[in-house]
């Protein structure tokens, strides 16, 4: 039985994960905290509006006897938030959440942190496959990368201070999928895939569903340590473009890339600064450590790109067919607490079983 606290319920990952965990009987309680309202429909997960105040968080943790905290709210994309906002969320926010579960008598026994492969950066003298024991060969180049390292350092400190807490860090590769909004999904939506002239980087992807399954996997299987979450197969960017059925456009010059990226950004090509080096040198991850814990990926990198391609072709036809969801406090409270509502028993499978079922094994 686990009692789970999710951070960032209004973000894509928070919402997805809350929905996914609702299906498991083993997850007794799901509490989502965020300063904004959830954007997806939830059955039994409870939403508590709270901003980054560790005092309040700590009270929620104690009151609900939370044993598992899943933190997925890290900003890994510099166009979704300005540098100041990203720093506030990634460094200050993480510190607050860690503070809320690092008190000596805290009930928390498991802390799962979703991080990013931007942790490793992308440089000329990188190894072809980063494994979890490697640190980046050079200091970070962008504020976002600096923040990610700072956040991970704070999480690692929690592991050191409180050995009874099982700390898991998931360093996720570039995520692709129909619903998630990342630098790569935006780039692949352009009429042609922009490249740096004379470079064809090796890039590894992972499907959005696999990230959700990976987080679930960590809840049910004790997996302390850092793990790379990246699908099998490293693709060349040109290969990804041909899977999407798009042409490549070497619009970025090999010298003075940063200078040209600026004007291109104002034309609507979004190149986050942490992507510029990735488009030049690429990055491969060694995903074997996570596979060794018994996790199976539903998609390879190639399949993730191919699926995104299908979605992008269908998108103009399908767009706007399904209505959106808005959180209405009164309605949600009625559905959850009114004695007149007929409720099904939440999930009738046990944790591991349901987990492998969702993976399609």
């Amino acid at each position, binding site marked *: 039985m686990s009692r789970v606290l999710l951070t960032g319920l209004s973000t894509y990952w928070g919402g997805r994960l809350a929905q996914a965990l609702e299906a498991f009987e083993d997850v007794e309680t799901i509490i989502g905290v965020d300063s904004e309202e959830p954007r997806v429909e939830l059955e039994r997960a409870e939403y508590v509006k709270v901003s980054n105040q560790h005092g309040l968080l700590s009270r929620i943790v104690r009151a609900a006897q939370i044993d598992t905290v899943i933190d997925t709210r890290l900003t890994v994309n510099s166009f979704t938030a300005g540098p100041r906002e990203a720093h506030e969320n990634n460094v200050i926010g993480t510190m607050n959440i860690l503070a809320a579960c690092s008190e000596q008598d805290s009930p928390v026994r498991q802390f799962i942190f979703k991080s990013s492969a931007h942790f490793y950066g992308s440089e*000329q003298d990188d190894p072809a496959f980063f494994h*979890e024991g490697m640190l*980046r060969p050079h200091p970070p180049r962008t504020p976002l990368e600096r923040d990610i390292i700072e956040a991970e350092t704070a999480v690692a400190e929690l*592991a050191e201070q409180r050995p009874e807490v099982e700390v898991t860090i998931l360093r996720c590769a570039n995520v692709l999928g129909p619903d998630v909004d990342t630098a790569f999904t935006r780039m692949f939506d352009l009429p042609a895939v922009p490249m740096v002239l*004379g470079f064809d980087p090796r890039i590894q992807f992972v499907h959005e569903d696999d990230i959700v399954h990976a987080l679930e996997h960590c809840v049910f299987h004790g997996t302390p340590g850092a793990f790379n979450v990246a699908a099998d197969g*490293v693709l060349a960017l040109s290969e990804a473009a041909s899977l999407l059925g798009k042409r490549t456009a070497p619009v970025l010059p090999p010298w003075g890339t940063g200078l040209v990226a600026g004007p291109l950004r104002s034309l609507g090509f979004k190149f986050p600064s942490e992507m510029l080096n990735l488009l030049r040198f690429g990055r491969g991850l060694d995903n*074997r450590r996570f596979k060794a814990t018994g996790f199976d990926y539903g998609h390879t990198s190639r399949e993730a790109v191919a699926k995104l391609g299908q979605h992008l072709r269908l998108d103009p036809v399908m767009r706007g067919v399904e209505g959106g969801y808005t959180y209405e406090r009164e309605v949600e409270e009625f559905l959850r607490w009114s004695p007149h509502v007929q409720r099904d028993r939440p999930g009738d499978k046990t944790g591991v079983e349901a987990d492998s079922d969702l993976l399609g094994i």
Partner: protein
Amino acid sequence: MARARSPLADFADSKELVPAERRAELMSPIEPERTLNDWGRSERVEGFMDETLYEFFYRYWFRVEVEGIENVPSDGGALLVSNHAGALPPDAPMIAKAINEEHPRPRPLYLTVEHFFKGYPGFSMLVPKIGGVAAHPANVHRLLHDEKQLVLVFPEGRKGTEKLYKDRYRLRRFGRGGFVEAAMRAEAKLVPLCVVGAEEAMPAFAQVPFLQKLTGLIYFPITPTFPWLGPLGMMGYLPAKFKIRFLEPIDMAELGGKDAAQDKALVQTVAQEVRARIQENLHDMLGKRKSVWFG
């Protein structure tokens, strides 16, 4: 950033991330739909290069002769160690082609290259597609230990390619013995080999540091065709006769394998030994050679 003793480094302690015996089984499976592998090596590009350039150079231009091909193991990881000289030397593709043509069980050969090639436009696109892999210890280990591939190294590295014509066949220092350490850690076989002819195919008469800085290239040599014919001059090889001799392999597992890699003295001794054997055989081959062009 994160120094050796930071909590981050402790947290991500690299020891036994994946148990050694499970590393091969957990490798990404090969997807038949793809023409590139995870290193970025492309069947298509390589096939094209092979049919056009390599075939011509191997058969008609350099008329490559091979000795001791049986010393290249037909399975398991093996590290091939060769001498190296001349501007943009053609030796690596010729060695790869020799294994493809002469060996009873042809295997692909991965070539370790300087990190420079990943950072220079054009090269960065081409080099991985034809089997080039950056000479990072982790890359060599993965290829030898986990993938059981053939890997070619030039321990002279950049000091070899910068060598001028007057210094041909004089082996430079063999780095710090990193190649021996890599082979030991992977418990692979080490196959020394000698190439005669490559050091005359594109002789460099001088190095121009000023132009090297200006172009950002790894070095800027003056050869019979470069820079006079521009980038095309990089392919201007003289038709020297090539001879490749593979020497008897050294089994690193017998030398003590993984544990021996910690022994700096042993690593240096083996590196010296390999260098001496290559130099000795080079002298032997040069002594028997009557003509640079006809062998």
